[in-house]
């Protein structure tokens, strides 16, 4: 059997069409769309990748659809550890969603790429202007490299100390009033022969930021930069970090060197650890594993007597520049940040709502850790230090550059002063580059 010329041409054309469809199918835009009947289709991506939370979010989005006739929302949950990479890929290929949640550390890279919509005008005319915590709104505005409001925060969190209340009671320890008391308690509750450790250090993925949170809280230093010089290598910081590092393999498990979030929290929940430093987000894990046997306390006051908090990157909602329906996308953000929905989202995440009208909800008072964090945030003796999230290199410095060096510090291969010196130098270079632009 032979093919005619027309048949061959048709075959070649068909193959090309099929190949094109195959290739471009992978690159189709994920942004909003309008179908033939005029219905608006929005896409919403959640960056946290939590299956339990996805069910609640789907329910919330379905309720939004019911209240907004003609608008449908397609939901996609991204794995948390690769959400940044996936959204970056979407930005590069012009296939962003209309709206997504992001971590605070994503904001600067996205703004730098011109991927996010300017929300200033929308926000100025919205009731959210009077409802959202003004300090948190100002904080996310400052985190954007151009100083423009591109995002709105939906959770407030705080780094705290989770501890085994039953071990504390057995040992006759009431609280951790000072940092000296913290170190004494850690030593007192360590019993290696019983597989009990006073503390667990996050030595692997995500190790440097919690270390800095501890160091700022310990020293009471209230600025990240002073005249362009990073404060992280201040002698007081070196002393604080040295004290922390000295706990490793003495009052902590040896395996802490590789600890990321999950193993660290897992060790505490397995019943091997007396105290762990983490934010409010791990509450659900502790409640499930250690019901009635744990509690939370905020960091002790610093050497200056003030409480100093290096603020956690806030989780935020953003609208992408590539959306075909900016008004409907904004309506979705407004809905998600309304007092009732913001309260539900934060109850699900065990975090503090950013809508102040939701902060008096009953469920917050019933959770000891949340009410402790809320009380600290309303304290007059609190100084909040903002990490330089506006630096596009910030995540790269904190993670890929410095995490391996911190492991070398724990392993005794690099001195604490050298580690902090390197970190300060990189941050100062990034800051100088940012200022010169």
């Amino acid at each position, binding site marked *: 059997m032979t093919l005619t010329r027309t048949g061959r041409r048709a075959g070649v054309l068909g193959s090309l069409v099929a190949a094109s469809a195959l290739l471009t199918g992978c690159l189709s835009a994920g942004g909003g769309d309008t179908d033939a009947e005029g219905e608006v289709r929005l896409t919403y991506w959640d960056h946290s990748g939590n299956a339990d939370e996805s069910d609640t979010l789907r329910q919330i989005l379905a309720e939004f659809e019911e209240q907004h006739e003609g608008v449908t929302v397609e939901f996609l949950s991204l794995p948390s550890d690769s959400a940044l990479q996936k959204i970056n890929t979407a930005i590069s290929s012009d296939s962003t969603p209309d709206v997504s949640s992001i971590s605070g550390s994503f904001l600067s890279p996205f703004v730098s790429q011109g991927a996010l919509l300017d929300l200033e005008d929308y926000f100025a005319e919205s009731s959210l202007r009077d409802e959202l915590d003004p300090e948190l709104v100002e904080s996310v505005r400052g985190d954007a490299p151009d100083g423009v409001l591109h995002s709105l925060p939906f959770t407030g969190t705080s780094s705290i100390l989770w501890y085994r209340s039953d071990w504390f009671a057995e040992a006759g320890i009431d609280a951790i009033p000072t940092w000296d008391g913290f170190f004494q308690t850690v030593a007192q509750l360590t019993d290696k022969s019983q597989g009990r450790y006073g503390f667990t250090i996050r030595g692997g993925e995500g190790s440097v930021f919690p270390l800095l949170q501890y160091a700022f809280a310990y020293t009471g230093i209230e600025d990240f930069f002073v005249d362009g010089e990073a404060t992280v290598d201040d002698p007081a910081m070196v002393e604080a970090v040295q004290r922390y590092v000295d706990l490793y393999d003495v009052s902590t498990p040896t395996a802490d060197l590789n600890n990321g979030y999950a193993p660290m929290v897992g060790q505490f929940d397995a019943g091997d650890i007396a105290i762990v430093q983490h934010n409010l987000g791990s509450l659900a894990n502790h409640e499930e594993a250690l019901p009635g046997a744990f509690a939370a306390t905020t960091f002790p006051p610093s050497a200056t007597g003030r409480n100093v908090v290096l603020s956690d990157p806030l989780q935020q909602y953003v609208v992408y520049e590539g959306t075909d329906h900016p008004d409907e996308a904004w309506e979705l953000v407004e809905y998600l940040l309304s007092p009732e929905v913001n309260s539900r989202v934060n109850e699900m995440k065990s975090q503090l709502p950013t809508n102040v009208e939701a902060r008096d909800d009953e469920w917050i008072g019933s959770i000891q850790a949340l009410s402790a964090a809320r009380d600290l945030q309303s304290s007059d003796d609190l100084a909040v230090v903002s990490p330089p999230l506006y630096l596009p290199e910030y995540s790269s410095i904190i993670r*890929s550059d410095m995490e*391996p060096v911190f492991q070398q510090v724990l392993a005794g291969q690099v001195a604490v002063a050298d580690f902090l010196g390197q970190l300060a130098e990189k941050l100062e270079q990034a800051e100088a580059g940012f200022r010169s632009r």
Partner: protein
Amino acid sequence: MNALATTSARPGAARRRRRRGLTPWLLLSPIVVLISVFMAYPIINVLYTSFFHKNVVMPWNDGFAGLDNYRRMFFDDPTFWPSLGVTGRWVLVQVTCQLVVGLVLALIVNERFRARGPARALVFSPWAISGVLTTSIWLLLYNPSTGIITVLEKFGVSSVGFAPLADVDTAFWAAALAELWRGIPFFAILLLAEVQSIPHELYEAASVDGASRWRRFWHVTLPHLRNVIILSTLLRGVWEFNNVDLLYTLTNGGPGTSTTTLPLYVAQVATISSDFGYGSALTTVAFVILLVLSILYLRLSRLGKD
């Protein structure tokens, strides 16, 4: 009349010849298109990008870099040379140990004995397990609270709470053992297939000549396996050079950079730093190293020549 027929037949014959000439190319064209799209284009694109500053989080710095990325790699990057050293050590340890143990196991399961079937299944089973699942298994084994360390502690062989993956001196070897477990079946399967193709008469003749078991292995089995050993070690060497999944999930390159291989470093540069220009330069160098070493290896080993 004959002349007319010949003249009118010529265009048809020419068309048939042309068609016959084009047919092989048409048949080859799908694979040529696939290779161009999925191999040639990415390689050329990576090479091209390696001469540019391209970082998605700092687009204002993007532009032609010349040899800047290569200068940074060879002279300013504290991780590049150590990662290359770790890669070399990793490939050497893996290929050598996997070959030796795989060969021994192939010879054992080639013998006739009871339960040979289950024994073969046992030897080959790690090959069916994914890299991430291998990581989970070995993380549990190395866990100081639940793993084999607890048993070793009871016998006094290990100190309390010892974590092999958290120790700079042992992390490489702990990871190497996990990969060894996964990689041995590759050699065992290939070598067993080849061993089974050796004519039995050769062994009989050697036995008649009084050759011992060792001499039969040395003078009959090994020469017969020569080509498959050369090819499989080359394939495995390239594979192990590019290994990312197990190390990424088991140690993520740590402690420090003690298990950071070059491909793992490239992955970190690309995924965390989003520095695709520099990542492309690192990838290009890795590609050139593999290409040169592969050509040299094939030349020196004289593959296919007696």
